[in-house]
């Protein structure tokens, strides 16, 4: 097994204690840090996302894999020459006003971050204006809006409407998700995409950025 495969395997299995050491070893062997990030970690997280979608693994396994990757990135960062070199864009993610649920939003943050984005987590109970304000940053490519409740779907609608009215709307994509949300609802309120789970959200966000 190559060093990159070892890293990928450790990330997939959520071995947060092993990954930093393996990354150090890979760097010592002279492997390109960008390759370590892409092949050793981001690709591994894509595998994790696929397995999650297929119910081969569940939320905890996905969380520990993301945590393991984070530990590896911490070791890798100094060799990557700063955030700007590795980030494929900035994603702003939050749960709408009136809704305190954070697990779906947290999973999306983890998976989107693991896909190579810089993530600004706005938290829960976020007013529409806060989303719009955060989306003013020219680095923002994705705005993710989460709602878990049927009763907070109107707040999601109001948030997306406010984002759609932003002068720099062409610069970012609006993605929505949450238990009661459907493709039809996403289209009705003018979002660019709806995804049913965090892993799909990350892969669709990547496609958006790739153009």
């Amino acid at each position, binding site marked *: 097994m190559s060093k990159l495969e070892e890293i990928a395997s450790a990330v997939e299995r*959520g071995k947060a204690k092993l990954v930093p050491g393996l990354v150090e070893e890979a760097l010592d062997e002279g492997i390109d840090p960008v390759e370590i990030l892409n092949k050793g970690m981001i690709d591994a997280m894509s595998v994790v996302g696929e397995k999650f979608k297929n*119910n081969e*693994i*569940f*939320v*905890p*396994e996905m*969380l*520990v894999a993301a*945590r393991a990757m984070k530990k590896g990135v911490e070791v890798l960062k100094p060799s990557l020459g700063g955030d700007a070199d590795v980030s494929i864009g900035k994603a702003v993610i939050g749960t709408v006003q*009136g809704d*305190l*649920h*954070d*697990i779906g939003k*947290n999973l999306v943050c983890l998976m989107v971050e693991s896909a190579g984005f810089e993530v600004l987590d706005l*938290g*829960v109970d976020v007013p529409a204006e806060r989303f719009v304000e955060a989306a003013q940053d020219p680095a923002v490519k994705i705005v993710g809006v989460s709602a878990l*409740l049927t*009763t*907070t779907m109107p707040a999601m609608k109001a948030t997306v409407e406010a984002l759609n009215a932003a002068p720099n709307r062409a610069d970012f994509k609006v993605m929505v998700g949450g*238990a009661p949300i459907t493709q039809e609802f996403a289209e009705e309120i003018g979002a660019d995409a709806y995804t*049913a*789970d965090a892993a799909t959200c990350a892969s669709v966000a990547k496609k958006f950025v790739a153009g």
Partner: protein
Amino acid sequence: MERIPFRKEELKVAGQTINLGRGAYPLFSTPISPRENYLMFLRGEEPLWMPLARDTLSVTPAIVKDNIARGFVFDMTGFDPNKDGGGPDMFGVEWEWVPQVRGSMVRPGNPKVPDITEWEDYIEFPDPDSWDWAASAEKNRALIEQKDLLLGATILNGLFERLISFVEMSEALVAMIDEDEQEAVHRLFDRLADFYPKIIRKYKEYYHIDILTFHDDWGSQRAPFFSLDTVREMLVPYLKRIVDAAHDLGIYFELHSCGKNEMLVPAMIEAGVDMWNGQPMNDKKMLVEKYGDKMIFGAYPITIDSSSTEEEVREACREFIDTFNSYRVYGGFASTMMAAPGVRESLYEFSRIAKCGRAE
């Protein structure tokens, strides 16, 4: 028990139930009481009709602080969640009542237990012996003395939900599989498995309940939160002790566990759970065919909503009873019984006829 055939007169209103805060509703002129019928069903005998969610009165009294914190007090004290909901639960975790959701949540960002491996430093277990159960029961005397309906009690925040309330959701999920944290979770669940039976015993002594509903959500809309192996390792041993404690007191055990959890049913059976009222995204037909001899399942006609016509309601109920009458199924979720007029009446009528025939 004589198989008394159905007569249309049975649908005449014979009285009203006690109002536990969700409103009173009519009692039909049934040949035996709904409680008697339900107990036959739970004992494994053939009931005269399919028991329905509305054949149970489930109490969540204000004496248990969880019920106030969650805004989920259903007893005879006239609790108003908009006025009194939220606040600390019995472990001191602060809940926030959200009126538009009609439920409470712990606001994320400031967990009661910052590190699960050190939970003993932050958590003090309550002492149910120090609560005034006699006064609580006195306030609910009419409820306890009624014999028309099955009497149940609900324990909110089971095992996994309690863990979430202490450390927040993401941390709770990780702690279920992280080998550095699992030991602490085992210690917590072990204590909870000693603690919950204390409350169950109080419910038996003071409320004389027939059934206990244990609230522990294990899944999301699309899948369980964790694998069957994780549930077997982390939850089943402790859940079984709680179930056994209820059974030792002659109390039936219902698991309330939201989410698409059908793949976790083997774990429920291993824990000794008598019945599970899963949400509609679970394949009830598959479940009753595969596990119907080992556990009771709650199900209901899912096509009915507030826009359904009288004819649509009757057709949906007829089809539902045709599908599930031969299995150990009860008509779950009281809210479904209220989704449109006539649901309860139709389910009663069609299941009575299916089980006992119609009088000439």
